[in-house]
């Protein structure tokens, strides 16, 4: 069938604009899928690889005093692959003039840690007997430290000079955060350093003992093993046991990766579905416009399969071009996104892989979509008998809508030009629907690409400007009595201070469990403003707790219910409390109670684990510095820095959404452009007739322009509605224990969407104008209608 193939090539050339538009739609569908999915798969694989290769812990236990023999007993337990004790303490270091809170971990004598093995960027482990240390790579990068540099360690009331022997990373600290009370650490505010075991034992007073054991466990027996480990540690003053899933860095990483997965699946899925559906509509219209050719082929005796193949090839060519370009762009896009993620996720062994199978699947999927689209679109046309196919399609049934009757005198007031536009729109239902659908999809894609930005802005506003009112928060190394923190109020620039008691607890209710942060504050606190779902301000009750509404909802807890709280610190007893109120919270979730009530409830003490401060802005820096001088202060967070840091972190969502916005813009334009192009092709005869009647080109353009605009404006409404609904659906998948996303689409986003969509419609109209100019009336009208 070489003649048919030659015809195909010329047909492709003839329809190039249309086919390119189809290719573009598909290309960006494939691109969005591949780029995001490749980067997600790579980041996930990298994390898994890092965890496996560097033997990230399965479980770790904290206890007061673990001796060598206990550690050895633990290692021999059934189901335990490895048990490695270490000392881990909070301390501070001075890097030049700057004081930084650090976690200090011990390294086993004369060897590398087996569990949580270190990845060395530079240098080597500290030498035994020398005052050397390893610093985490994030700390080293932030302060630009070099091997051989000296830092001052402030611990146990002593200052020790340490020389930097190397920089390293550990699978334990992909996120370097101090603990549950400060999930978000501003870079440079917190870090990790490693010292030799004997050095730490001497410094922190653990001769021949440890305060943590890290485990690798057999996967199948983990549950029972953990129970036995905790029993064995009872005599060592067992404090808490944490499984891998609850380990803070890991749970942060998992939640980030989960979000990435949602984004990598949801957005491309939406784009691909829209692309596929539009391809189907485009192919259907293209084939419908060729029914005479199709009929002639059948009359000549060409087999159905040959004809079918012909149209599948026609669609397939755009599919192939679109998919291949999409795959190439997607692969590079995926790698570029990975490079970006490397900056964001601190995984030193990033696997950047091109995933040939995924690429083949994407190309195959793209091709499949076009072939299936062409097949389905052509199916009705192929089913026609040749005599039928060669007759022009019978005029579509008149709508029966009598504007005159329905609108009465109003209809008479409509100018004639508009009457024609309205009648055309009502008469050609399929064409109107196809155009409207294109517009609708464009609106949906644009809105869905913008809601994330608006929603995170809202989140920051709610959390940092309405809910949290303090300026600085300092966390203590260990609980401090109310009396001892009073002098902090005298620091220059401090306006008010309030104690806070943060406790990690396991909440249980009717068989449901959740790890939560319990925060004790003053009943008349001015540091946080809690509001109920109606926006009414809540006060901290003298007894009972105020829970985050989203937690209560997910666990089925209602007002007045009694919940069980089991502190992580095993030295404290479990307690039952009443849920007095539910507060809307968006991030930094905490269950609030009166600080004195909490003290009475758990250990009958009057202690704080931190302090909340309001201060004058110009004094933030000096206050932070001064706070660091107090021996019990472990870390200091400045809320303004937190907001800035969080916004920079959101930068990665912004970049992603920017890319998605660009893609939706391009796909949207391609769809609208194609639709306009087919409109003209379908109506050549009608337009030529108008020209013959004496209509000016300008008037015809105006008529078409009005038609497209009117359809577009009408399609905006369902577009906005579905865009909003889909945004909510997407938002739900991003809501987790760290974020409670309230889907917000700003007025600005709606305006951008509407203006861009209408611009696309207008511009597509302008772009196809030459086709009206070049319309050869005589040629068109000479041909039989088809």
């Amino acid at each position, binding site marked *: *069938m*070489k*003649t*048919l193939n*030659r*015809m195909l090539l*010329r*047909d492709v050339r*003839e329809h190039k604009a249309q086919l390119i538009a189809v290719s573009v739609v598909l290309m960006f569908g494939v691109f969005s899928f591949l780029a995001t999915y490749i980067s997600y798969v790579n980041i996930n694989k990298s994390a898994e690889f890092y965890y496996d290769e560097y033997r990230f812990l399965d479980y770790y236990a904290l206890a007061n005093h673990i001796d060598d023999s206990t550690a050895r007993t633990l290692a021999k337990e059934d189901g335990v692959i490895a048990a490695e004790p270490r000392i881990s303490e909070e301390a501070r270091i001075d890097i030049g003039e700057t004081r930084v809170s650090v976690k200090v971990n011990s390294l086993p004598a004369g060897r590398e840690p087996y569990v949580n093995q270190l990845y060395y960027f530079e240098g080597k482990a500290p030498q035994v007997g020398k005052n050397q240390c390893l610093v985490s790579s994030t700390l080293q990068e932030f302060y630009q430290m070099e091997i051989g540099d000296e830092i001052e360690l402030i611990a146990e009331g002593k200052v020790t000079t340490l020389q930097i022997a190397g920089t390293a990373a550990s699978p334990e600290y992909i996120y370097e955060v101090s603990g549950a009370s400060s999930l978000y650490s501003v870079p440079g505010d917190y870090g990790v350093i490693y010292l030799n075991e004997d050095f730490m034992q001497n410094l922190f007073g653990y001769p021949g003992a440890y305060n943590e054991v890290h485990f690798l466990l057999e996967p199948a027996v983990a549950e029972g093993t953990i129970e036995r480990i905790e029993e064995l540690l009872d005599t060592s003053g067992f404090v808490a046991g944490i499984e891998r899933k609850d380990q803070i860095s890991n749970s942060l990483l998992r939640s980030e990766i989960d979000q990435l997965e949602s984004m990598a699946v949801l957005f491309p899925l939406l784009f691909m579905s829209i692309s596929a559906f539009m391809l189907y509509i485009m192919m259907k219209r293209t084939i419908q416009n060729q029914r*005479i*050719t199709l*009929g*002639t082929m*059948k*009359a*000549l*005796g*060409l*087999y*159905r399969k040959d004809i079918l193949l012909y149209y599948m090839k026609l669609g397939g060519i755009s599919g192939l071009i679109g998919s291949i370009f999409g795959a190439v762009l997607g692969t590079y896009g995926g790698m570029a996104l990975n490079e970006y993620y490397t900056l964001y996720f601190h995984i030193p062994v990033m696997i950047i892989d091109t995933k040939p199978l995924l690429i083949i699947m994407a190309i195959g999927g793209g091709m499949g979509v076009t072939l299936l689209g062409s097949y389905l679109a052509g199916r009705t046309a192929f089913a026609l*008998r*040749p*005599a*039928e196919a*060669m007759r022009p399609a*019978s005029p579509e*049934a008149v709508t029966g809508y009598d504007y005159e009757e329905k609108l009465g005198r109003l209809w008479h007031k409509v100018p004639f030009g508009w009457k024609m536009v309205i009648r055309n729109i009502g008469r050609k239902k399929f064409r109107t629907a196809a155009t409207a659908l294109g517009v609708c999809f464009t609106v949906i894609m644009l809105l869905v690409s913008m809601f994330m930005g608006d929603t995170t802005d809202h989140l920051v506003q709610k959390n940092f400007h309405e809910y949290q009112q303090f300026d600085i928060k300092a966390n203590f190394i260990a609980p401090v009595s109310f009396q001892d923190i009073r002098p902090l109020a005298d620091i220059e620039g401090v306006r008010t201070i309030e104690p806070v008691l943060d406790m990690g607890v396991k909440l249980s209710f009717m068989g449901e469990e959740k790890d939560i942060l319990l925060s004790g504050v003053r009943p008349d606190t001015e540091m946080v403003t809690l509001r109920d779902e109606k926006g009414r301000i809540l006060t901290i009750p003298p007894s009972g707790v105020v829970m985050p509404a989203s937690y209560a909802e997910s666990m089925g807890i209602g007002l007045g219910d009694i919940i069980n709280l089991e502190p992580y610190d095993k030295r404290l007893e479990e307690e039952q409390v009443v849920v007095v109120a539910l507060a809307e919270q968006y991030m930094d979730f905490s269950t609030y109670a009166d600080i004195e009530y909490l003290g009475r409830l758990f250990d009958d003490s009057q202690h704080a684990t931190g302090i909340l401060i309001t201060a004058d802005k110009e004094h933030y820096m000096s206050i932070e510095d001064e706070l660091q001088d107090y021996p019990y202060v472990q870390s200091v967070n400045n809320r303004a820095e937190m907001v800035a840091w969080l916004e920079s972190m959101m930068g990665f969502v912004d970049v992603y959404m920017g890319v998605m916005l660009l893609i939706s813009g391009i796909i949207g334009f391609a769809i609208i452009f194609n639709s306009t192009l087919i409109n003209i092709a379908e109506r050549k005869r009608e337009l030529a007739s108008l020209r013959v009647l004496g209509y000016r080109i300008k008037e015809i353009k105006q008529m078409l322009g009005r038609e497209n605009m009117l359809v577009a404006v009408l399609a905006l409404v369902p577009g906005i509605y579905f865009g909003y609904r889909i945004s909510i659906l997407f938002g739900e998948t991003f809501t987790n224990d760290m974020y409670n996303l309230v889907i917000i689409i700003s007025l600005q986003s709606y305006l951008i969407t509407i203006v861009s969509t209408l611009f696309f419609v207008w511009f597509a109209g302008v772009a196809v104008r030459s086709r009206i100019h070049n319309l050869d009336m005589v*040629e068109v009208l000479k*041909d*039989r209608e088809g």
Partner: protein
Amino acid sequence: MSHDAIFDIKGVTKVYDMGEVQVHALQGIDLSIERGDLVVVLGASGSGKSTLLNIMGGMDLATQGEIFYQGEDISTYSEAELTEFRRQEVGFVFQFYNLMPALTVRENVELASEIKPDALDVMDVLRQVGLDERTNHFPSQLSGGEQQRVAIARAIAKNPEVLLCDEPTGALDFATGLKILEVIKRIHETSDRTILLITHNKDIAHMADRVIRMRSGKILESYRNEHPKDPSEISW
């Protein structure tokens, strides 16, 4: 069935269902076409002549009745069998030529010749219709008469048993139309093909071996021309 009949049509009706209205395009047609005849089917617009031609050519299905082609009832054929029938036995010429705009003159003819093993030589056929000089032109570069000659070349290139021409001169002026008729006549004389030509122009009937007149889906009369005229002797 007469002994040398190529088509034997019995009680064929065709009803088009147009929603609320039913159009009876053919109402009980009985007809026998002899092999090798040049038959002109004459009738006004709406008489059912195109419908009859489409059904005989396997382009459409009858609502009722039987159509025997060389003894086989094609009215019972499946879609695939009808395609095969059109492919092997029938050549079509349409009023509006229906050439493939993306193919040259030669390629348009090749499109047909490629699908049949005993097809005629493309250049021979083009020479026969007087277009051997314009093989590389596209349809848009040809006059109506030339386009129709390409369509005829395309129809006969398959070397079909039957040539069905639906108003082949309908879109052409007198002189050009005449040339087309001469081409058709020549094809008839130089081969033993059966040719059915439908037209509303009664003068064309003079060139036929046999004339069938139709009106309102029925055959009004059918007669043989004892002395068919040469197209050059016809005028309208």
